[in-house]
Each structure stands twice: as structure tokens, then as C-alpha cells.
């Protein structure tokens, strides 16, 4: 899409805003609608948006496929690891009270933050990986075909 000047300028403006918004949704999920899943999808949407306008090669330079593929598994590991960590501290699996025994609601905050991070990482990875898988296959479509 080399000739779409307006699209490209707007994309550059919007991508960073979308990523910032996704982080807001992630870390403000305790207080307002949203959470790891929504934030992950919005984060992935930012990269997909960039990829749609600037092409697959450019977005893969920013966010290489090998990182994306590892993120998919890393998120599940963060989530499951949180559970094993609380078990290691002598509590039940995924019992967040383990992280601050004297102040259980703080422990809950830490636990929720950790698992939401895991969800964010996995969802972002999976969404971007699926987009890469679809977009990486020939044939590429020219603008006129639509």
C-alpha cells in the first residue's frame, strides 16, 4: 500500500496509541472493564493494523515470528507457573493468598496481575501468529482485486 499516504501517516499515529490503550486495559482491568484477554486482542490488533498497511515483512521486522511463537507458550507457562509458585509456598494451586500471607487481598492483587499477564502474552502471541500464518501464504492480493 505504498501510495496510501494518509493511511500510512494515520497508522503511525494510531499504532502507539492502540498499544498504550491495550496496556491501560490490561493494568486497569481491576477497576474497569477489560483484562488480559481484551488487552491481548487489542495489542495484537495494533500489530495486525501495522501489518495490513506496511506489509508483512515490515511488521515481522518489528515483531519477529520466533518471538510470537514463544510468547504463545510463555503466557500459559506464566499462568501455570503462578499456580506452581503458590503450591511451592505451601498453599493450594492458584491460591493467591500465598503471595502475601499477612494481607490476603494484596496477595490476590499480585496473583491476578500475574495471571492476567500470562493471558495477555498468550492471547497476543496467538492472535498475531494466526495473522502471520494467514498473511504469510501466497498469493498476495493487490489493491485493485478487492
Amino acid at each position, binding site marked *: 500500500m505504498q501510495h496510501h499516504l494518509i493511511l500510512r501517516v494515520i497508522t503511525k499515529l494510531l499504532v502507539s496509541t492502540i498499544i498504550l490503550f491495550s496496556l491501560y*486495559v490490561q493494568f486497569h*482491568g*481491576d*477497576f*474497569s*472493564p*477489560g*483484562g*488480559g*484477554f*481484551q488487552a491481548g*486482542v*487489542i495489542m*495484537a*490488533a495494533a500489530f*495486525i493494523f501495522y501489518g*495490513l498497511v506496511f506489509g508483512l515483512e515490515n511488521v515481522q521486522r518489528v515483531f519477529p515470528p520466533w518471538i510470537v*511463537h514463544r510468547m*504463545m*507458550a510463555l*503466557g*500459559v507457562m506464566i*499462568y*501455570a507457573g503462578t*499456580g506452581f509458585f503458590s503450591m511451592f509456598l505451601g498453599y493450594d*494451586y*492458584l491460591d*493467591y493468598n500465598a503471595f502475601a500471607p499477612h494481607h*490476603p*487481598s494484596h496477595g*490476590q*492483587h499480585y*496473583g*491476578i496481575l500475574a*495471571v*492476567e499477564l*500470562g*493471558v495477555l502474552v*498468550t*492471547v497476543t*502471541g*496467538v*492472535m498475531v*501468529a*494466526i*495473522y*502471520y*500464518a*494467514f*498473511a*504469510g*501464504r*501466497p*498469493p*498476495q*492480493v493487490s489493491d485493485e*482485486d*478487492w
Partner: protein
Amino acid sequence: MIVTIIDILLFFMLVMTALAIVNRRRLFSVVMLAGVFSLLTALLFVTMDAVDVAFTEAAVGAGISTVLMLGTIAQTSRREKDPTRSGVLPFFVVAVTGAALVYGTLDMPNFGDPNAPAQLHVGPDYLKNSVEDMDLPNVVTSILASYRGYDTLGETAVVFTAGIGVLLLISGLAGRRRREDEEEN
């Protein structure tokens, strides 16, 4: 009153969008209308005060899945094939199924009914205790991440599995074709 009018308007637009989707043959406009459909659904969730669900619907239904459907069109065909058989039998099946679904909803509790079975199980406990247990204003987050932490772990695993499945199905094939091409050359 105003909510009822908005609901009726949204449902009317939803039906109109669905009819427009059925009538189109160009798949590009079908995908775009499907995005509109998702967005209208998200608005309906907002009027039901289910903002978390609305958020997900808007991001996934209207955003990501539209892009994925466009990617699919790019791989396959731009136009739907014209139907070769008459639409009477499919229409009959759809009409009967729709009537059965409407008949099924007659037995369901009213929207927002505090005595609905879904409201009587663990819900009241979560709502009552979440402020003391978690000290979080958004009870949806408390339920998803802590009370039902196992379920969310399972969901994350499902998302992961879906990603792996797509990668195995699509990337694997592309790589194999490329290798075959290289061997032929």
C-alpha cells in the same frame, strides 16, 4: 423506556444486517457486514450492562475476525458461488430451528430476574465476598482471575491450542509447498 427503544432499534439493525449478508455475493462486503453485525452485538451487550463481554465482542468479532476472514478470502475466492439448488428446503430448516429456539426462550427467566437459576448458585457468594477477599472494584476480574482461576487457565490453554492448531495446519503446508518448489527448481 429509552433502553427498550434502543434495544428494538439495535435488534432491527441486526436483522437488517443479517438480511444484507444473506443477499450479498461479493464476500468482501459480506465480511465487512459481519463486522458491523459484531459491533451491533457489542452495543446490545452494553445496553445489558455486560461491558466486559461487549469489549471482547468488539475487539475479537469486529476487529480480529474481520482481518482473518479477509485473509481467508485472499487465499480462496472473492465471490460466493451462485446457488445451484432451490432455497426452499434450507429456508424451511432454518425457519423450524428458529421457531424451536424462540419456543425455548419462552421458558427462560426474564432478563435481570434475581431468581433465575444462574443467579442463585455461586453468584451471590462471589458478589458478597469479593470486596472483602480481593478488594477490587471490578467483580468480573475477581471472578475470572481468582475465584474461577482454573477455568481461566483452561481458557488460556484453549487459546494456545487453537494457535498451535492453526500454525500446524497453515504454516506447515506453506513450508512444505515452498520446499517442494525448491526441489523442483
